[in-house]
């Protein structure tokens, strides 16, 4: 079966398997989760074996991928854009060490912030680390470019960053696959010095990385993914990654003859860009994300022939669309129907029967008597507790921030200093913050809302399931202040009382609010029914 309907994310996964990876490392995060899930389900990943279990966070994932590369085998590491902030230490230094077996890092950006706290553009990280960046436009190209990424990585001995936006990751098309190549054999790197970033080695490696840049530019010049589509007139477009699709949609539907340069491989092919730009007086720069290369081409003194997100020809924020492109090219768009006022928003909400709901009811009651009612929140379904009817969560910043922000607020004098963090977020980035609070004897109440899973991204395994009491005790929380509650309606009064006791305690307390996610429970019941393990 060489033709398959695949999401962009799945096209990456299939291509990585066909490119001969020995492992994928990832922490779930929309819109990147489906890459790893595809490999976990693929029969092709069983023989020869491709390891694919979830990592505790993006940094541990990245380092394990680098270790596999050190051993000579190919590895894939996947994350959402903000995950790269977590992995950034390993990522930045891995461009200085370089790699041995091919290492491709896929970062799924989320312009328009469909499921994210910001819309940072990962191409900036690629430029920062001085490594090749690839940005495919469609699903078939995503497949091919992923295979190419592993070759490019082994050829340049550098990690390669592959960037996709939500719209490509979560859109399906027919993809034709090519033959599968074998995995690399175990062949540990013999270049010992390059992996030890002591200053003397690091300086030498960094110099070599800088010297490699010209080779990377030449590779971009000859890359089949950077190409010119000829046209007529003195206006032109440079479209990056998925920006090419929206541009081509307008070119084909309006039957335009506008010249177009498509860029999908970085660093920029300097000669190709220069030759193209010299021919035209008016060039629209189409980037999905930040105006990273528009800024570069425009220059400090603002060459006016370049238009794009910086001068308002395209909006500064949010994802692109065919309509935005038509407008930017000065075309008339048809009048469209409007949404009648009777239609009201339908925002996402916590599921019926969800344990977070019962926790929030108890917490709101326990907090009633305090003048300060803020609760530091974190990243997960329970962030929805910020909305009515609960309106209980006051902050949502980054993974693990609930504990450390509560600690800082407690240091400043806020009482009670209370936070809610999910089980998977706690193991991802909460444990170190808890240790800070313990060492400082900070009066904080940490509620781990444990639903046995990484729920918001679709129910992936959670790294600490069944061990939260032991983890907290091990980190030094006093045993009598690690309390377990079961968030159910019938336990409301008891839970309120336990919460109140710990809110009043002038030290570190942890409340583990433990009940399985209703979505994963439903899935499991279905699975059990299928295999007849459960009586009706």
């Amino acid at each position, binding site marked *: 079966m060489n*033709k398959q*309907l695949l999401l962009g994310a799945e096209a990456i996964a299939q291509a990585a398997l066909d490119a001969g990876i020995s492992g994928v490392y990832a922490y779930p995060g*929309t*819109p990147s*989760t*489906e890459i790893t899930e595809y490999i976990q389900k693929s029969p092709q990943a069983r023989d020869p074996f491709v390891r694919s279990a979830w990592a505790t966070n993006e940094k541990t994932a990245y380092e394990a991928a680098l270790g596999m590369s050190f051993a000579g085998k190919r590895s894939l590491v996947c994350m959402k854009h903000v995950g790269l902030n977590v992995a950034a230490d390993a990522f930045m230094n891995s461009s200085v060490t370089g790699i041995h077996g091919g290492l491709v890092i896929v970062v799924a950006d989320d312009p328009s912030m*469909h*499921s994210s706290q910001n819309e940072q553009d990962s191409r900036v990280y690629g430029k920062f680390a001085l490594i090749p960046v690839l940005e495919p436009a*469609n699903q078939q190209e995503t497949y091919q470019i992923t295979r190419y990424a592993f070759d490019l990585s082994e050829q340049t001995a550098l990690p390669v960053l592959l960037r996709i936006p939500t*719209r*490509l990751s*979560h*859109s*399906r*098309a*027919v993809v034709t696959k090519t033959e599968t190549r074998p995995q690399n054999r175990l062949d540990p790197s013999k270049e010992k010095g390059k992996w030890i970033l002591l200053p003397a080695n690091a300086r030498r490696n960094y110099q070599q990385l800088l010297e490699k840049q010209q080779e990377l530019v030449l590779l971009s010049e000859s890359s089949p993914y950077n190409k010119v589509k000829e046209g007529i007139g003195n206006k032109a477009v440079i479209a990056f990654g*998925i920006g*090419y*699709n*929206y541009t*081509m*949609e307008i070119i*084909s*539907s309006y039957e335009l003859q506008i010249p177009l340069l498509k860029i999908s491989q970085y660093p920029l092919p300097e000669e190709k860009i220069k030759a193209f730009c010299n021919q035209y007086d008016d060039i629209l720069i189409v980037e999905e994300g930040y105006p990273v290369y528009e800024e570069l081409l425009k220059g400090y003194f603002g060459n006016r022939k370049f238009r794009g997100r910086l001068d308002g020809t395209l909006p500064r924020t949010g994802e692109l*669309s*065919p*309509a935005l492109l*038509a407008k930017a090219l000065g075309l008339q*768009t*048809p*009048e*469209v*129907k*409007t*949404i*009648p006022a*009777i*239609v*009201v*928003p*339908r*925002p*996402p*909400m*916590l*599921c019926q029967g969800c344990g977070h709901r019962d926790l929030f009811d108890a917490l709101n009651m326990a907090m009633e008597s305090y003048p300060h009612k803020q609760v530091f929140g974190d990243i997960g*379904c329970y962030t*929805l507790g910020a909305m009515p009817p609960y309106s209980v969560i006051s902050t949502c910043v980054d993974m693990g921030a609930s504990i450390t922000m509560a600690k800082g607020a407690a240091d400043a004098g806020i009482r009670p200093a209370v936070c809610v963090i999910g089980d998977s977020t706690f193991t991802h980035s909460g444990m170190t913050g808890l240790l800070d609070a313990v060492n400082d004897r900070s009066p904080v109440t940490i509620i781990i809302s444990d639903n046995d899973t990484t729920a*918001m*991204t*679709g129910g992936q395994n959670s790294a600490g399931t069944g061990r939260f009491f032991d983890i907290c005790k091990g980190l030094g929380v006093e045993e009598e202040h690690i309390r377990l509650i079961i968030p159910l309606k019938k336990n409301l009064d008891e839970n309120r009382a336990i919460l109140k006791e710990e809110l009043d305690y002038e030290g570190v307390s942890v409340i583990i609010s433990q009940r399985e996610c209703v979505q994963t429970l439903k899935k499991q019941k279905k699975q059990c029914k299928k295999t007849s393990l459960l009586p009706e």
Partner: protein
Amino acid sequence: MQKNIIIAGVGGQGILTIASIIDLAAMNLGLHVKQAEVHGMSQRGGAVESHLRISTEEIYSDLIPLGKADLILSIEPMESLRYLPFLSPGGVIVTSTESYENIRNYPDKTGLLNHIRESASCLLIDAGAIATEAGNVKTYNVAMLGAAAPYTGMEATELEKAIATYFADKGEKIIATNLNAFRLGKDYAQK
């Protein structure tokens, strides 16, 4: 030939099943397909939609341009109106009449149905009743697909083949019930 279809509903209603069946049929016919869908937080009981494009020519944008959808196929009446700016002047709305009221300020249903009738040529389908008649209430989304079949640009027999493939690992009985729902939906719409 090019068909642009918005499939709309509420997270958890199974709009991706409909999309997958149309995708399969189009792929079997050797057509180009693009289908953008919503994953992540919005799936938790929020409004969700899928942009589905099929064509004999290469498709560029994963998103349907405004004013270019031939069909809005909605599993929920209010959701059918949310995507009106995408509907082409001659486009059709096929929607289920059964409302999914998980918000406090859900609008008056009669008013909603009137708005739908005024907005475009439309088919209002009691999908729940059809699915029950077909033998399983869970087949309501396939019943909706049946009702919308004439607007997909593909023969009903191709969609039926895709239904059989899609439910292949669920057994003969489930395939038969879904085919039944599809045909009943199609007949209902033709009346």
